[in-house]
């Protein structure tokens, strides 16, 4: 049985720090996706929302919130929460509905309004919550990114200049992207002159948090054929696997890894694309482009290795050689990535799929990756969540 579903339409609300209600962004993205798909809102049978944790009850029931804002029309609803992978889980829920025959066409949607500054835990004295505990002893999100970055420097000889090259590349990629928040080119000197946040990472090595929204209209292949979109890009894999005990990397928000006394230490990030490749029946050699979660510049290098684009320790060399630039053999983050967007948690994994869709349709303008046929996403968030989605044409 073919397990692909079609991506009929995609839409986004530009990323920024707009300070408005997340529902507003979501409706803009949904209407754009519907128009792009040529599908009437009344025909959508399933609304799969990615939840936001920072916008009260409407955020917890995002699927229903967006369905009401678009006008109740009797569709079935679902809301998924999986930290940074929320969008992918919402997409997986839609795929299950479609493949089981319970619906033919679905809206998948995520939107967020974010506070200023460091992401902080909920208030109160809560020693049982690992997220509260690590902040209590002074461990913030950049701490983890910096530990991974320093580890690369010690193990592979990567330098801060290598990390800066990732920022320079992504800033170039996102320069013309109308949905990106930061559209400015930077030099390696600009990166080196920005303030140190968590040694060896500077302000410009670390992504911001943003407001934004992304939406997809997905359907069965049969439905796509019937409305004249048989060549629409397809979702060929959605991996949302958990880590496997024992995790070898200290992951946010934990203060310790698993103990590997009774089980081999394993890397979570590498497991995510591995499952996606397996599901799609393709390998890293088939990939034309990738959208990866560059929470930090150095993390993009880790992802390249986790996606098996090169051996461990080789990623910085590929960046230096221009392989991952648009025009190179394997462009990474042609959208500009989180470096140009900033993170809007429930929308981000869907924004990655939007970019792959535009690229595979050849509609990316100045950031077009020529001949793009297969794209892969990778992301990871708190509490064992992550995802990898493969889109092909």
């Amino acid at each position, binding site marked *: 049985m073919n397990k692909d579903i079609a991506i009929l339409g995609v839409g986004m609300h530009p990323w920024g720090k707009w300070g408005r209600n997340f529902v507003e962004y979501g409706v803009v993205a949904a209407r754009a996706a519907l128009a792009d798909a040529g599908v009437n809102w009344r025909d959508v049978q399933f609304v799969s929302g990615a939840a936001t944790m920072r916008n009260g009850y409407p955020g917890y029931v995002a699927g229903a919130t967006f369905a009401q804002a678009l006008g109740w029309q009797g569709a079935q609803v679902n809301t998924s929460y999986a930290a940074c992978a929320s969008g992918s889980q919402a997409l997986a829920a839609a795929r299950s509905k479609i493949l089981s025959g319970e619906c033919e066409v679905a809206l998948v949607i995520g939107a967020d309004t974010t506070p200023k500054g460091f992401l902080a835990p909920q208030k109160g004295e809560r*020693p049982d919550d690992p997220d509260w505990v690590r*902040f209590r002893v*002074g*461990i913030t999100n950049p701490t983890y990114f910096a530990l991974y970055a320093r580890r690369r420097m*010690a193990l592979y000889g990567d330098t801060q200049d290598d990390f800066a090259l990732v920022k320079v590349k992504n800033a170039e990629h996102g320069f013309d992207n109308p949905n990106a928040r930061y559209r400015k080119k930077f030099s390696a000197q600009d990166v080196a002159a920005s303030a140190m946040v*968590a040694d060896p990472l500077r302000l410009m090595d670390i992504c911001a948090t943003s407001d934004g929204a992304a939406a997809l209209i997905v359907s069965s292949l049969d439905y796509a054929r019937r409305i004249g979109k048989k060549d629409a890009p397809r979702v060929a894999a959605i991996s949302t696997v958990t880590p496997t005990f*024992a995790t070898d990397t200290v992951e946010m928000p934990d203060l*310790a890894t*698993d103990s590997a*006394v009774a089980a081999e230490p394993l890397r979570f990030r590498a497991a995510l694309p591995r499952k996606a490749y397996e599901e799609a029946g393709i390998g890293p050699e088939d990939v034309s482009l990738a959208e990866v979660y560059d929470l930090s510049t150095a993390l993009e290098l880790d992802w390249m290795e986790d996606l098996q684009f090169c051996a461990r320790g080789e990623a910085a060399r590929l960046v230096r050689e221009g392989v991952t630039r648009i025009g190179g053999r394997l462009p990474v983050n042609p959208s500009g990535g989180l470096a140009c967007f900033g993170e809007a948690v429930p929308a981000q994994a869907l924004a990655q799929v939007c970019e792959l869709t535009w690229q595979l349709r050849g509609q990316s303008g100045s950031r077009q990756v020529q001949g793009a046929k297969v794209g892969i996403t990778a992301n990871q968030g708190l509490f064992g969540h992550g995802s990898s989605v493969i889109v092909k044409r």
Partner: protein
Amino acid sequence: MDAPVKTPVLEGWFTLDEREPHLLGACCSACGTYYFPKAIKFCRHPDCAGETFEEVKLSRTGRIWSYTNAAYKPPEPYISNDPFVPYGIAAVELEKERMIVLGQVASGVGVEALKVGMQVELILESLDDGKLTWKWKPLAENKP
């Protein structure tokens, strides 16, 4: 006059022996897997049904797996003086427990004094609010 008794930032996370402190962990009686923090009721090894745990003192020395610092004042619930003084942070690999544990680095030790693979020991120091926490401090004699 007796010195005032210091309270730990987290109750039961480490011993209050200021000379040779230990982090307090748990060890599964069935499979030997260690846990930190120690609050665990059911073993998380997928093939282990263990439900009894022994409280154990974790190794108080290890090697730096990676390190960084906090150059900016973290948000609440972290409490710090004004002006904020940056502090180091180390991820330390404990050989016996085969796990990596995070912690601040002893005050006055900057990132330039740290190296991956360096041997460190556990010490107790006060945070800016006076509460005791565990920190990692490079050993005077470091064996490669």
